[in-house]
């Protein structure tokens, strides 16, 4: 009993003054995901990886808009989005104070313009994603002429590419004969 009293006196106050004083979290703590809309290109890698479907991508083909959205009510702070993001647009912050008065405040959205296909005019991929691929090719040292070709290819939708490729392949096949 005496030992216990000694221990109690030694420890003193164990309760933290939170919320009147902030609580420090450990470095590397996985808190609320922070989204940088400038870096994001709406490629949907995060939405595919997200286990609880907190992240989603919706596509409006009429308006030509791709919407990235995060619903904090579902997030489990696993950080898979941060891991798979090719541009580093999502990072997990140390922020853990997430209570809101209004459920809508748990949503975060960002709209991205889609590119229209050069041939058929249909919207098919985010503009920024095409730019990203183009820049990658540029940085990999593709010559000017190759870049022009690449751009022409990148700005065509997969459907038109298929339609275009079949006659080309037939022609090649015939030439080989």
């Amino acid at each position, binding site marked *: 009993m005496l*030992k*216990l009293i000694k*221990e*109690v006196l030694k*420890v003193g106050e*164990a309760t933290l003054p939170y919320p009147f004083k902030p609580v420090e*979290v*450990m*470095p*590397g*703590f*996985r808190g609320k995901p922070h989204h940088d809309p400038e870096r994001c290109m709406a490629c949907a890698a995060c939405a595919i*990886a997200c*286990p*609880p479907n907190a992240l989603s991508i919706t596509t409006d083909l009429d308006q030509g808009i791709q919407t990235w959205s995060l619903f904090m009510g579902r997030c*489990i*702070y*696993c*950080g*898979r989005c941060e*891991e798979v993001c090719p541009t580093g647009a999502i990072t*997990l912050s140390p922020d853990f104070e997430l209570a809101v008065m209004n459920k809508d405040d748990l949503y975060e959205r960002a709209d991205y313009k889609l590119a229209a296909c050069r041939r058929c005019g249909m919207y098919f991929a985010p503009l920024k994603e095409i730019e990203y691929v183009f820049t990658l090719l540029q940085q990999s040292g593709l010559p000017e002429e190759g870049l022009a070709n690449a751009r022409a290819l990148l700005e065509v939708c997969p459907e038109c590419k298929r339609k275009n490729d079949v006659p080309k392949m037939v022609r090649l096949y015939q030439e080989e004969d």
Partner: protein
Amino acid sequence: MTVAIAERTKVGKQYVEALRARFGSSILDEAWQAPEQVTVTVPLNSLPEVVEMLYYQQGGWLASVAVNDERPLNGQFAIYYVLSVEGNENEAGEKAYVVVRAQIPPHQPEFPSVTPKVPAAIWYEREARDMFGLQPVGLPDERRLVLPDDWPEGLYPLRKDTMDYHYRPEPTTENETYDFIKVEGEGIVQVPLGPLHITSDEPGHFRLYVEGEHIVDADYRLFYVHRGMEKLAESRLNYDQVTFLADRICGICGYAHNVAYSTSVERALGIEVPERAQYIRTILLEVERLHSHLLNLGLACHFVGFDTGFMHFFRVREKAMKMAELLTGSRKTYGVNLIGGVRRDILKEQRTTTLQLLGELRAQVTDLVNMLLETPNIVQRTQNIGRLERQVARDYSPVGPTLRGSGFARDIRVIHPYCAYDRVPVTVIAKEGCDVLSRTLIRAEEFFESISMVERCLDAMPEGPVLTEGFTYKPYQFALGYVEAPRGEDIHWSMLGDNQKIYRWKCRASSYNNWPSLRYMLRGNTISDAALIVASIDPCYSCTERVTVVDVRKKKATIVPYKEMERYCRERKDSPLK
């Protein structure tokens, strides 16, 4: 359907040979999933005898029973009895998982019950009936186990063709209709303990049959919070996302489930996990055991009325939580496993801080445990209380400290080493007392063993990568994953599908194997010890809200609020029955 396993590496061939010697052509097939995992297929009618022989003659323990709707694959249901076979008392044998598989034709959805021969199968067979509509013929207990009593007849959630995972059928009845066992006799009173108060603790409904203050028998209804995770995993998640769901099976030992799931898939696909990742997993599993055992030791204080001790255990436990936060980025739901390894390495400064925290924990918990044991009534309240006799333990296959408290030195970390446990051996702690005291002391000693395990692993871990990538997903492979969680063996049986999903995931938490033997621990004690005994198996669900006491003599049921039962357990005066 199996990965090629080299003949010389196979462990447990002797058991399959013994089965062949006795059952001959009844052993239809033998398939090895891993060097220490073999699945033998037998005809349905020899199922009980084969399981019985493995269990009682070859030293088998029932680890799990997985049912799988394989109609889309081969037109049949299949039932897998997973046994950890370890050699009998006369002859120490190799330690292997022998899985007995039998096919069940859909036009006659029934199988001979194994329970009359091996009592440990009781819950699994009741679950097979609930979830798949497979009738265990000869099983005396015809009540539901998992499904609620107001669930429609004939709707079997885990059959592939019955329902979408979103579907929530209307309740079929207003009342709880669960048929508790009938205990009759002069002077026996029923005490219902539970069912619900989800806000504070987890739900479960206990019914204690008492004569005066003495418990004659007990019955319980659980699964009020069955979340349908297996269905969710096969329906909505990709196989590599299920690790994050596995983390959420339990709020205390989720990482153990995460490792069990990951290793089951890695084994099924034949993925080599880098050595450093195996060490990291081992470290985190032991960190999880630290906080889990401190929680239970704290509760042990609480239930014997030593609430100051409870507060201090929880204060010190905070260091273990900080350690987890430091190493994984989260206090709970570590989420660091991927199929193929881990996502986060342990860096030098993290290692230093961890070692420092471990030192503090060791010193402070030593003091607290001494204080707990010096409390005058701890031994008096726990010795010879809640006895789990050796034979009952042998029959029901409980796991973890519950089993080790009854003198069986069974620890999966030693019997079937996984992760780095074959390189950093652990000392198994077992006690002969069969009582609450033994189980509590085991947890206290295991706590210090875990500290030393983390230190040794931090020392021994090699440099190198922590994640294997670029493996191939192969359809319909299956294997077992197993972990010694703080409460005992967690075992996962996973089969991959052909669509980047899991085809069937049977995860069995340790408490599932511990609950059925609780009835025997409660018998013969006074009701003031009931809460203490339930807490001594450290159930994943730990508290119940109300108790019904049924007086057999007066044929009268009294409902006692759980808080009142708990108070009586601590203070032991003013019996709520008077």
